[in-house]
């Protein structure tokens, strides 16, 4: 019954994300200045798109494999970050294969491009906040967790008396057993995202006329949006699971003090934020800017 509810919720959220993506695409119109020829940038657009799709396919395959490896819930927790990492690698590949300036006469403007010129203003800070929440939450749950009956660290939330006798234990609990793979994957995803953003900013411009510059800037901004969304998914989806599991353990642990129930509801609030963020990032992944000639 619970799995049916989760599946129904997932389908609903994907539909909401698709609707949001349509609205975003309608709202993000890049108007080109008159003159110039946007056709010269089709090669770049095609390479970016195909590499991104290849990365998505690799990410889906990797996520499927990781999801199938149960590992007491570690596999499902890491499936989304693996999917996001695939997408990040695909985006990096696309950025690395964009055409280099060629020909005997080459020009460059003296602008200084910065990452903040292209990173989305809402999604990037949101990803930073979610990362901070995830790290703090995993640190707290790791500190509060106890080893289970097989000695796996931090898998249960146990209440013990002063002499070390365990009264009761509730699990699974997202302690160190789950925290270290999650933190390791998040660190890798963060470094990969930073690398892709660096490449997005530093790669050469394909042309210097106003049309080429406008299309190129739109492509860079879209790549930065994809990177932010992929990293956001890497954080938000596992954070949802960690929050829900921790809240469930708190509600089940009957020996805890009065703060346990409010803490459980706070964790459900975090889960709600993470679900909403997941939907938002999915919509950002599905949306594309519309390029219109003046």
């Amino acid at each position, binding site marked *: 019954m619970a799995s049916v509810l989760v599946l129904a919720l997932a389908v609903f959220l994907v539909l909401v994300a698709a609707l949001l993506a349509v609205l975003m695409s309608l709202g993000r119109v890049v108007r080109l200045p008159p003159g110039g020829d946007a056709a010269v940038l089709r090669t770049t657009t095609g390479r970016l798109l195909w590499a991104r799709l290849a990365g998505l396919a690799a990410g889906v395959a990797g996520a499927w494999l990781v999801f199938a490896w149960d590992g007491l819930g570690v596999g499902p927790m890491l499936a989304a970050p693996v999917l996001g990492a695939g997408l990040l690698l695909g985006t990096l590949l696309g950025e690395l294969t964009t055409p280099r300036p060629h020909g005997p006469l080459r020009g*460059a403007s003296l602008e200084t491009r910065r990452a903040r010129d292209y990173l989305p203003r809402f999604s990037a800070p949101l990803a930073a906040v979610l990362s901070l929440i995830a790290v703090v939450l995993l640190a707290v749950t790791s500190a509060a967790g106890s080893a289970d009956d097989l000695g796996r660290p931090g898998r249960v939330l146990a209440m013990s008396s002063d002499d070390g006798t365990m009264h009761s234990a509730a699990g699974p609990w997202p302690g160190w057993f789950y925290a270290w793979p999650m933190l390791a994957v998040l660190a890798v995803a963060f470094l990969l995202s930073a690398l892709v953003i660096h490449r997005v900013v530093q790669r050469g411009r394909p042309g210097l006329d106003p049309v080429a510059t406008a299309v190129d800037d739109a492509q860079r901004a879209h790549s930065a949006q994809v990177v932010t969304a992929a990293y956001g998914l890497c954080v938000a989806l596992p954070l949802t699971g960690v929050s829900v599991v921790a809240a469930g353990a708190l509600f089940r642990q009957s020996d805890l003090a009065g703060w346990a129930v409010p803490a459980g509801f706070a964790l459900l609030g975090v889960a709600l934020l993470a679900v909403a963020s997941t939907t938002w990032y999915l919509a950002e992944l599905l949306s594309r800017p519309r390029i219109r000639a003046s």
Partner: protein
Amino acid sequence: MIQVDVTSPSPPYEQIRAQLAELIRCGVLGAGTRLPPVRQLAADLGLAAGTVARAYKELEQGGYVTGKRGGGTRVLAQPEPRTARETLIREHARAYLAEVIRLGGTVEEAVATLKDLPAEP
């Protein structure tokens, strides 16, 4: 904007250095202006990063720019930029007119051709 002709006998780093020095001397790049990062300019021109780095290093040795780790490369103050700019424009115009006359053209033809050119190269 700067341009590099990779078929020119002048090496690319010297072309970059000369153009940037000219822009700084004539005040187009004012004191404190940050030059693009080496890797970015190299990628935009399709050149190796070392080529642009060498141009920046020579500009630094010539007293045009200062480079600090983490702070980028910034233009240093230059004396009387306006005079230098006017002088440079005059020199380029004289060179252009000399070429037109060498090809059998007239001053009027040279001026008309300039007027027909678009504002951006």
